[in-house]
């Protein structure tokens, strides 16, 4: 059994920043400045702007690395940098401050590191686009906001970054805003996030009403004072916020649509970083979830449900980016499942990091395929590409082996730990969650193998006149680096860095308490068998005979449902959109006829009937002057009356 030692200290205190850490604000300021220069500088910056944006993110990475090393050398690993007093109103006092601790430091490296590689990749990918500068301005804006999200030292500061990344995501999904589908997808993403934001907002209000503060330090120090009900309420509200941002059930439908954005955006924002912010939020709020078993369990259940949904739909799509998107939904489901298990938070973060590498790698490889195939995304129009794009094939292959969890690739270490932790919960919940995670691994292997087979193997099903070619170095080098990350990051983070130990000041200590439900060796073997089954199934289904260029019609009901996102979109439409539209129309009618009519009638009545109203309308100035005069006369009369009366 796994045991979790809650963060023992009753009060959590952060030490003041000094040394290299006193300039932490630079991390956010550098990309923010880059974004501002590119946006305000106009066309003058077209030529060197994209390079500047890369340099800003690169500089942030270097500084992040220095800060990280500095933090590793410290005894007190929660460092707070107070910047200024942000909203000081009576009892509600919010400071703008940054918290640099193992958790945020880890995220800083992920965001700036992967972010920098994707910036460089975009130099090649977006080449020739007339709005390349704008693209890089938005990318820098995203990096700045995401860093604020993970560095903010209060829930309110986090909220600013939270909405900032939402804005950047909106802008980038709608980058090709002249495409109606892109505009709709962007709006959908923003609205789904807003639904989550309601949860986050109310959670902050509850915290303030209960504890009089919104800072991490204040809330977490006093989390023990919360009643069980309040802690559960806060936990569930935070979860709602996390579901919106991370595309978790029931708010998952925006994420696949978000693939309307350019592929580097899908890699950075909608796979590696932003969509994992929900996991960050839950992990960050560990001291609250320590006090509410219910909310923590709901987190795991939501993760499990989403994991299944993502897997099933991932099998049905032919659009390579949508398959990857649903795979992201499903992989984040794994992270939610883990982060809800007491003591397994570190494994959620481990999977988040390895996923950051291998999913970014796969998206960039997919982008490289599209680059060579005239932006074709239909896998039924690919085939046999391994000969024409060897580097892309190798990189996608590395990502693929990592996501299905073949040792020694990264996903093997992180996913196995999650399955193991789930079983170790014990009881019914342990068996259910563990089995879902285990079977999910098999389905993941199935649809990912399908993707590989349809893209790189089999017959060539290209449309006329296509000449697949390998992408330029500026794109392949970042891909190769990410592929290396997909290979080594799992082992490295778990055994070289010892991530669970490193994160323990934030997430609590992970203790090996008692025997495992299923022994590690047996479980690992079982997982590998399930994965092998998934791979074999896909090869059997798609590898033996040529893939038809149109989707088959005679399919199982599950496939039909999966192709329609399991009807979640239709459900939203018929439950929310349609009634909303009718309500709005009815209200507009009423407002024009009802309330207005009544008041018009009243006004006419006071004026002495509608005929009088017309007369007022014609000679209005005179009438008004008269009314003023009349009013004044009434005043004088009244005043006189009062004076005479007293």
């Amino acid at each position, binding site marked *: 059994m796994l045991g979790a030692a809650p963060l023992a200290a*009753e*009060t959590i205190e952060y030490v003041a920043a000094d040394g290299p850490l006193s300039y932490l604000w630079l991390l956010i300021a550098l990309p923010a400045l880059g974004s501002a220069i590119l*946006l305000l500088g106009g066309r003058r910056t077209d030529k060197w702007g994209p390079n500047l944006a890369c340099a800003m993110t690169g500089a942030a990475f270097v500084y992040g690395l220095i800060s990280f090393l500095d933090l590793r050398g410290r005894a007190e690993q929660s460092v707070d940098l107070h910047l*200024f007093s*942000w*909203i*000081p*109103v*009576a*009892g*509600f006092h919010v*400071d703008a401050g940054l918290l640099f601790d193992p958790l945020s430091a880890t995220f800083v490296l992920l965001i700036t590191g992967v972010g920098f590689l994707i910036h460089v990749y975009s130099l090649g990918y977006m080449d020739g686009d007339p709005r390349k500068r704008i693209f890089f301005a938005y990318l820098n804006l995203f990096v700045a906001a995401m860093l604020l999200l993970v560095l903010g030292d209060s829930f309110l500061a986090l*909220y*600013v970054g939270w*909405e900032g990344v939402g*804005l950047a995501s909106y802008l980038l999904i*709608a980058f090709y*805003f*002249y495409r*109606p589908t892109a*505009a709709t997808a962007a*709006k959908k993403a923003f*609205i789904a996030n*807003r639904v989550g934001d*309601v949860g986050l*907002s*109310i959670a902050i*209000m*509850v915290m*303030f*009403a*209960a*504890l*009089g*503060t919104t*800072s991490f330090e*204040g809330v977490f120090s*006093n989390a*023990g*004072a919360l*009643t069980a009900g309040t802690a559960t309420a806060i936990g569930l509200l935070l979860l709602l916020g996390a579901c919106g941002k991370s595309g978790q059930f029931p708010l998952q439908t925006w994420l696949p649509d978000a693939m309307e954005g350019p592929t580097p955006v899908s890699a950075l924002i909608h796979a590696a970083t932003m969509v994992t912010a929900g996991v960050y939020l839950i992990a960050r709020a560990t001291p609250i979830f320590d006090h509410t078993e219910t909310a923590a369990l709901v987190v795991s259940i939501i993760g499990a449900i989403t994991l299944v949904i993502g897997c099933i739909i991932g099998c049905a799509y032919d659009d390579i980016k949508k398959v990857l998107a649903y795979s992201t939904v499903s992989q984040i489901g794994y992270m939610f499942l883990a982060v809800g298990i007491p003591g397994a938070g570190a494994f959620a973060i481990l999977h988040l990091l390895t996923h950051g590498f291998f999913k970014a790698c796969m998206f960039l490889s997919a982008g490289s395929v599209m680059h060579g195939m005239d932006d074709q995304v239909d896998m039924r129009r690919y085939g046999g590409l391994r000969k024409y794009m060897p580097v892309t094939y190798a990189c996608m292959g590395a990502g693929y082996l990592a996501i299905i969890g073949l040792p020694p690739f990264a996903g093997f270490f992180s996913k196995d730990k999650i399955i193991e932790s789930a079983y170790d919960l014990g009881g019914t919940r342990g068996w259910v969650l563990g089995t879902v995670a285990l079977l999910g691994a098999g389905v993941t292997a199935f649809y990912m193998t399908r993707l590989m087979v349809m893209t790189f193997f089999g017959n060539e099903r290209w449309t006329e006149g296509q000449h697949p070619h390998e992408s330029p170095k500026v794109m392949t080098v970042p891909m190769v680096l990410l592929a290396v990350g997909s290979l080594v990051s799992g082992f490295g983070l778990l055994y070289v860095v010892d991530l669970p130990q490193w994160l323990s000041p934030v997430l609590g200590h992970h203790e090996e308490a008692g025997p495992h439900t299923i022994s590690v060796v047996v479980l690992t073997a079982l997982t590998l068998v399930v994965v092998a089954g998934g791979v074999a199934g896909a090869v059997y289904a798609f590898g033996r005979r040529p893939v038809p260029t149109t989707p088959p019609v005679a399919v199982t009901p599950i496939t039909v449902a999966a192709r329609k996102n399991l009807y979640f979109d239709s459900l939203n439409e018929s439950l929310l959109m349609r009634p909303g539209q009718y309500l*709005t129309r009815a*209200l507009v009618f009423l*407002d024009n006829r009802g309330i207005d009519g009544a008041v*018009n009638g009243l*006004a006419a009545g006071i*004026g002495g009937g509608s005929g009088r*109203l017309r007369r007022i*309308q014609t000679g*209005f100035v005179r009438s*008004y002057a008269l*009314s003023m005069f009349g*009013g004044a006369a*009434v*005043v004088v009369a*009244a005043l006189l009356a*009062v*004076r005479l*009366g*007293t």
Partner: protein
Amino acid sequence: MTPWLTILGIVPLVGAVAVGATPRRSPLLAKQIALVTSLVVLLLTLAMCVDFEPKGDRFQFVQKHDWISSFGVQYAVGADGIALVLIALVAVLVPVVILASWYDADPEAESSAGTDGPPVPERKRSVKTFFALLLVLETMMIGVFAATDVFLFYVFFEAMLIPMYFLIGSYGGPKRSYAAVKFLLYSLFGGLLMLAAVIGLYVASARQGLGTFEFDKLTQMEFSHSTQVLLFLGFFIAFAIKAPLFPFHTWLPDAGAEAPIGGAVLLVGVLDKVGTFGFLRYCLPLFPWAARELAPLVITLCVIGILYGALLAMGQKDLKRLVSYTSVAHFGFIGLGCFAFTTQAQTGAVLYMVNHGLSTGALFLVVGFLVVRGRSRLVGDYSGIGQVAPVLSGVFLVAGLSSLALPGLSTFVSEFLVLVGTYQRYQVAAILATVGIIFAALYILLMYQRTMQGTLSAAHEKMRDLRLREVLAVGPLLALMIVFGFYPKPLTDIITPAVTHTMEDLGVQDPAPSQLNTATTEKR
């Protein structure tokens, strides 16, 4: 002490006279004088703000002179923190409006300058009168916030209508006279109620032995409960119409839609704030018992207004009506803040008044820029404008995001303060109001998607992007919203002490954190 408020009131009047004296053939001179005057007022206002001591007396720059001594009517002015920031808002918005409305009274001048504008209107309109009216309106607006004598306040409250009536009625859209009359009828009705209440207030104070209109003296008095309720309702309804609060809002969409864009900015940005300012200045401190008793009712109206205004905004086809309806929702938030009776909520409400002036001002301006180019107010007549006018579309987006209170912009600070302050007393109301932020995102993003995104309509392929004059007009508003979004302290430092006085008059205190373990030291 410098009589800042009187100076501020006089300067625009002098400017208006100077504008009126310019020859009819040189409209440019009139415009230049108006702009310079408004900039002088802005500078003077900034100097006044520097001179203001947040921790000093409640009312500063006080002047009192007998006016109608037999009835105790005084020319009495003074500014507390609330009035100060609203006067500053006026001073910021007027030059912006003048710059943005440069050609609104004589569009043919713009056409001859080689740019596209609306078709030449059916009748000649006096250019100098337009700008003189704006300046007169500025005096009235400053006066209404500066007055500390209830009668003087009433005079400004009514007189303010006249320049606005002419701005809408003479320089507005096709249905301008209907809108102007409707605006005036509503205001007049509210004004009459208020007049009755003002007289009643005098009578009530006379019964206590001292007939007075002086704010300071009135707050010292304790009126009977029934008197309080009656007078409260008189003032409240007058202010609710002005604000406008649901269900007194139906004049606003018409007036907002038909007013010339500069008039709309001042109408929604400032004039309407007199209503919510009145809640805080008069309804709460003068009738604390009635205010406390009736607060749940007002809160209910505000929450309905937030959701109702947002739903109505979603259903509008006319851009200016849409923006007007968003304001109905925003005024719901402001009202909520005023009546939640916590320092956070009231400070948030005042901050909201300022931010809403900037935000809706910017949104109205950019809608105006669009309408001037496209010659239509209908959402459906635009599509894909972002492709030909990226700057306009960018400004539109930022203004829209401020309207939906995106964190990082100043509107978020005020909205969140209102919500967090409300939650401490009225959980359900706060939660319902928070749901309103989803609707806000919907109406803004739907409007943005329909007009700026998607395929470009053929009719607008040659639409011009914003010109320098227009950028200079709207730019400062966006800059202020970003600056105050990250650093609202200068404003909250001024507002909070004033709100504290209001809370004291009202006799309520902020609730303490409900579950704080007192054993552990509270760390904020």
